[in-house]
């Protein structure tokens, strides 16, 4: 397919310039002004043209929990949210702990997915934390990294083995840092609110202790370690110190930890139950500061869809998780960029170059010869979060009614448009009429 994106504003590497982009054979073939080239034309009307957004922490629930989400529905949600690539976490049923399952995910994603899916394999067999899984074979089958997400490898010996083993091929270990013995059954952040509600509290020290251990093991094994969904100040400080002395550690934070605090759990609001739990305002500020000073490399949604019936219960019984793919960009744009807390360039970086660097992927930019993985943003667009309009299966979000802005207007993967003006699917641009975005 050949297509000219006309009148867009390219945001890349911190600069903004007006230009047309000619896409041919899935790649960016030319960038210039007043381009007239073979193929169709899409008038971008001044929308922002970004390198495709990447979400490095997503639960697609397939295989085994297709009632919650599938590769098809999850990647549709990703396309709607402006993401061209997602990393699929391995805590499916069965757990992705062998090369066959990695291939299965990759194949299904190729056939049924709207965006690129990078499978993450488990660190240990069955995510049991006892024996390391076939990291090398899974890597050959296409696993981008390894994680027992949902559970931390509690046994320090097993964890150290896994890191030493992974380091021989420079594989990435992704850790969900949480010492379960310190969590002690906690279902929300430990503190006065948990005690007032009579809910068991999860002490922040459970995360700090786990982060410090992982950093020590990564330093000793020279393993690439990524700490996912940090939630507390002490963890951010530990990563900052480790980076300063050269440990190969990276970190991400979720949109909900950047925008919400534990008070969202009041009145036993099961939609705010998430793991790690929502914390205090001081933690939220520390996460934002860590993001701004580069301690935290990426924003990742931890998109965790659940059925409505599963959340319609008591706080203790509800499964932890919030969906994020369809709201992450628009909420953060409204809350951080428009409020002046963060520059647009930084927000772009945390969803593109940041996570790509963590994953060891080549940089992606709007430049000739690059794959045409492009996200277009309409800075003037605004909407309220309405779970009824989600294309993903999960509607478990505490953000209903929140204002979003700078909405994704187009998602293009390898030169194919998979979302245009909110319509998700393989969109064909009309031949004759000059189609318009917006």
């Amino acid at each position: 397919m050949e297509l000219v994106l006309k009148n867009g504003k390219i945001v890349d590497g911190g600069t903004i310039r007006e230009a047309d982009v000619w896409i041919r054979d899935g790649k960016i073939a030319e960038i210039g002004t007043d381009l007239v080239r073979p193929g169709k034309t899409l008038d971008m009307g001044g929308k922002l043209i970004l390198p495709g957004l990447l979400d490095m922490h997503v639960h697609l629930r397939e295989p085994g929990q297709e009632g919650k989400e599938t590769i098809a529905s999850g990647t549709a949600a990703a396309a709607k949210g402006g993401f061209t690539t997602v990393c699929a976490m391995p805590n499916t049923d069965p757990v992705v702990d062998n090369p066959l399952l990695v291939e299965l995910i990759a194949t299904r994603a190729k056939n049924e997915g709207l965006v690129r899916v990078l499978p993450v394999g488990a660190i240990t067999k069955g995510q049991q934390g006892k024996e390391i899984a076939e990291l090398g074979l899974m890597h050959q089958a296409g696993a981008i990294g390894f994680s027992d997400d949902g559970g931390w490898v509690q046994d320090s010996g097993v964890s150290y083995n896994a890191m030493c083993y992974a380091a021989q091929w420079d594989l990435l270990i992704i850790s969900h840092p949480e010492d379960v013995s310190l969590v002690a059954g906690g279902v929300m952040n430990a503190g006065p609110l948990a005690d007032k509600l009579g809910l068991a509290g999860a002490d922040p020290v459970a995360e700090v202790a786990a982060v410090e251990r992982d950093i020590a093991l990564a330093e000793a094994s020279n393993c690439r370690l990524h700490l996912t969904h940090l939630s507390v100040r002490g963890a951010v400080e530990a990563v900052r110190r480790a980076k300063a002395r050269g440990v190969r550690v990276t970190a991400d934070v979720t949109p909900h930890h950047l925008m919400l605090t534990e008070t969202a759990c009041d009145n036993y609001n099961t939609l705010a139950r998430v793991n790690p739990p929502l914390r205090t305002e001081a933690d939220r500020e520390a996460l934002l500061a860590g993001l701004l000073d580069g301690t935290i490399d990426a924003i990742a949604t931890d998109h965790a869809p659940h059925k409505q019936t599963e959340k319609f219960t008591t706080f203790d019984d509800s499964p932890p998780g919030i969906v994020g793919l369809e709201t992450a960009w628009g909420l953060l744009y409204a809350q951080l960029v428009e409020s002046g807390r963060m520059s647009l360039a930084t927000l772009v970086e945390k969803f593109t170059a940041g996570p790509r660097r963590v994953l060891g992927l080549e940089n992606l930019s709007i430049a000739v010869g690059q794959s045409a993985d492009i996200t277009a943003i309409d800075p003037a667009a605004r909407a309220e979060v309405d779970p009824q309009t989600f294309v993903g299966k999960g509607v478990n979000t505490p953000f209903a009614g929140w204002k979003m802005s700078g909405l994704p207007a187009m998602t293009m993967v390898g030169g194919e448009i998979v979302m245009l003006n909110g319509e998700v699917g393989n969109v064909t641009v009309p031949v004759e009429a000059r189609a318009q975005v917006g």
Partner: protein
Amino acid sequence: MDKHLLALEDLSREQLWTLLHRANEYRERLDRGEKDGRELAGWTVANMFFENSTRTRMSFELAAKYLGAHVINFSQQGSSLAKGESLLDTAQNIEAMAVDCMVIRHGTSGAVRFVAENTRASVVNAGEGRHEHPTQGLLDILTIWRHKQQVEGLKVVIVGDVLHSRVARSNIQGLTKLGAKVTVCAPATLLPDSGDWQVETETDLNAALDSADVVNVLRLQLERQQQGLFPSAKEYFKFWGVDQKHLQKDMLLLHPGPMNRGLEISHQAADGPNSVILDQVTNGVAVRMAVLSILKERGGN
């Protein structure tokens, strides 16, 4: 409090006093042997206990019967029925049998509120999780008020596993609203993060009891020892067990029962001159009569 009683946290000072005055009237009626009220005539109360408690269930049952209600009992423990969703199924089924009021005890904080939000009947919290046990809080306060003729300005010390105690939470909410000064005393592993509460915390029992007017001793679950929250019953009793020697002449000694004698409280103290523990039991019936009759007036089916 309109048609439900879910937590003392929800009640204003005025609502608390309305309940206490009504309960005091019922207490006087019980003392006169009048147990044939008609306030709840035509009303059906279901006692739904998802956690064992013979005493509380009997107290609610008698309170309802003394006021002329129909009463049914349902109990179920530890099974999958304890899960939130099937709890609601059970509640909706019982409600469908023309039940007007559900008295619910459940092991999960927020479970009673969950039922109240999704059914039409009046709902009374008979103890949920570690959240609140409002009728126990009310009966403790009624007992204190009747003996001390006041609540405001009293120093009340709550001793024991405050962290896991719904009794403590209801006491704290009710007592502080009525102007009492509350101190909680426990080993550090059993103390809550009391940031937002108007309470003092203390790990030293003697210091806590200094110039106290009331000592409310909580029941200690021995399973906390298995969880490593304190080392042994012997050590606990040595440092936090309340004995007669701790009690000044005018101190009132309360315990929600059933007691672990020799663990959180000594024999001498439990049966001593300061103890009002059996009086609490009678007040419990009076409080539940007050709650049910007021709910019928307010929400009244």
